[in-house]
């Protein structure tokens, strides 16, 4: 049998091994390099912290701002004693403690936001 056609050959090469991945820009590096995106992250954190701070300050200001007027109206030195001498301090400490918890929670939420996000 000599008229058999020679078997065809096909070109074979190995699969491409090195696929260049697209650079993944971590959010952390966006913040480090202060790009517009990083700036947006930082500004959002700042807004949250400012909100917590202003809340605490507003509570303080509202109470303290009206107290002198209340004292004037009441004309009772016993009340002034009780409030300014003793009762003022625990609420101040509690307000401070509330703020610290809020601020720390803002920060840990933010940290989770930054680290958990994959490349945008």
């Amino acid at each position, binding site marked *: 049998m000599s008229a058999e056609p020679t078997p065809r050959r096909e070109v074979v090469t190995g699969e491409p091994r090195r696929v260049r991945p697209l650079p993944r820009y971590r959010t952390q590096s966006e913040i480090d390099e202060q790009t517009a995106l990083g700036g947006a992250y930082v500004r959002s954190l700042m807004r949250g912290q400012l909100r917590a701070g202003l809340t605490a300050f507003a509570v303080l200001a509202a109470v303290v701002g009206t107290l002198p007027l209340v004292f004037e109206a009441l004309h009772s030195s016993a009340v002034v004693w009780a409030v300014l001498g003793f009762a003022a301090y625990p609420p101040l400490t509690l307000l*401070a403690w509330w703020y610290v918890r809020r601020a*720390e929670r803002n920060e840990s939420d933010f940290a989770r936001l930054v680290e958990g996000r994959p490349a945008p």
Partner: protein
Amino acid sequence: MSRTYAVAAVAVVVLATVLVGGFGLRISRTTSDFYVASRTVRPRLNAAAISGEYLSAASFLGIAGLVLVHGPDMLWYPVGYTAGYLVLLVFVAAPLRRSGAYTLPDFAEGRLESRQVRRLVSVLVVGAGWLYLVPQLQGAGLTLKILTGAPGWLGDVLVASVVVLAVAAGGMRSITFVQVFQYWLKLTALLVPAIFLVLAWRGDGQPRVTFDAHLSAFRADHPLYATYGLIVATFLGTMGLPHVVVRFYTSPNGRDARRTTVAVLALIGVFYLLPPVYGALGRLYAPELIHGGDADAAVLLLPGRVIGGLGGDLLGALVAGGAFAAFLSTASGLTMAVAGVITQDVLPSRGVRHFRLATVLAISVPLAGSLMVSRVPVADSVGMAFAVSASSFCPLLVLGIWWRRLTPPGAVAGLLLGGGSALLSVAITVSGAVRPPGWPHALLAWPAVWSVPVGFLAMILVSLATPRRIPPGTNAAMTRFHLPEALTTGRQR
């Protein structure tokens, strides 16, 4: 009242300050022990140190004296001193620590990148520091006068010399453990006699204390305005005081700085429960102080008056020792802060370290002031320092940390107009040129109500008018101030 115990107590405190502050506590570790390098100052320890340094003559003597004379409205002072730390916590604590600044001029330079602003802030810091130092020295003078009958100026000179000695001998070391000890000493020095005083009062049948109008001395004909002026000054002025700012550096990070501030709040709150007791009892047992004499002396006189005998003498000695500890610790903390600023920013050459000269400068000007100026109630004169700080440093800190559009010309405008006007008002009041009654006196004696808004407005308006001067590093600075620590280092702590 036998004075020997009191004098001995004062001498012990003075000697301890010179020795410990001068030669320092040595904390040596050989390598067989655990390594120190990873240790940081724990927030509670740091808080006790800060409180120990913060409680000054105003806290120790001044509040009780004012309460005795003018009634419980004066309790706004201690509430203000405490709430000032709350305002500081909420707006300034963590970002200031993260800025890495040691003093306020450092913060100004880092945020605004301008040497002119730095110099202006330095001048104001020195001014505020001197204003705060004068009442400390005067309080010391008063204490010695009461205890030993010495002339009024002796105590001032004594405290000034001790401070210079301690700093010259040991440099400007800030030793946490010493200041922690100061806090507990001051607390004990007020608490223990207070307990006995209250017991004695109950033994006397618990006579009621009255604060009727005709018994209270005249303070201001616009008491509501004065109260608000006091509130604004103390609430907003704490954050900029020189010896408060430098203490933030010791916290290892922003988070700890916040926690430390809360602890400080609690600790000084505990302390401030005590002066009102002295004020109220003073009214009963030392009523002559209401209309004449220095009411600041109430705390010192009461133990002898109420309890008497050996117990009274010993307790009086304890109180005197605590009082002197208060003067010395605050005075040395302030002097170091002011001398540091003078060395860095005012004295010309940097080659040779001039801080010995700077220390002498830092204390001699307030000493001269304390000797020349007639005595104003200690708490009021401290209030003036707060007013200057609130009008200049509060806008700088708050806007610098939270507002991106602050510019150096804006900062200069705010500092000059706010701080300058407060300083001017204080100077006029002290010089006695404008006398009560009347609105001019009230406005000048408690300037914070108008000078703080002036400072803020000036800073904001001028900054908006000079948008080209926004420092290029603003974004980087904001990121540094507000980013939590775990993200800046990139690894778990």
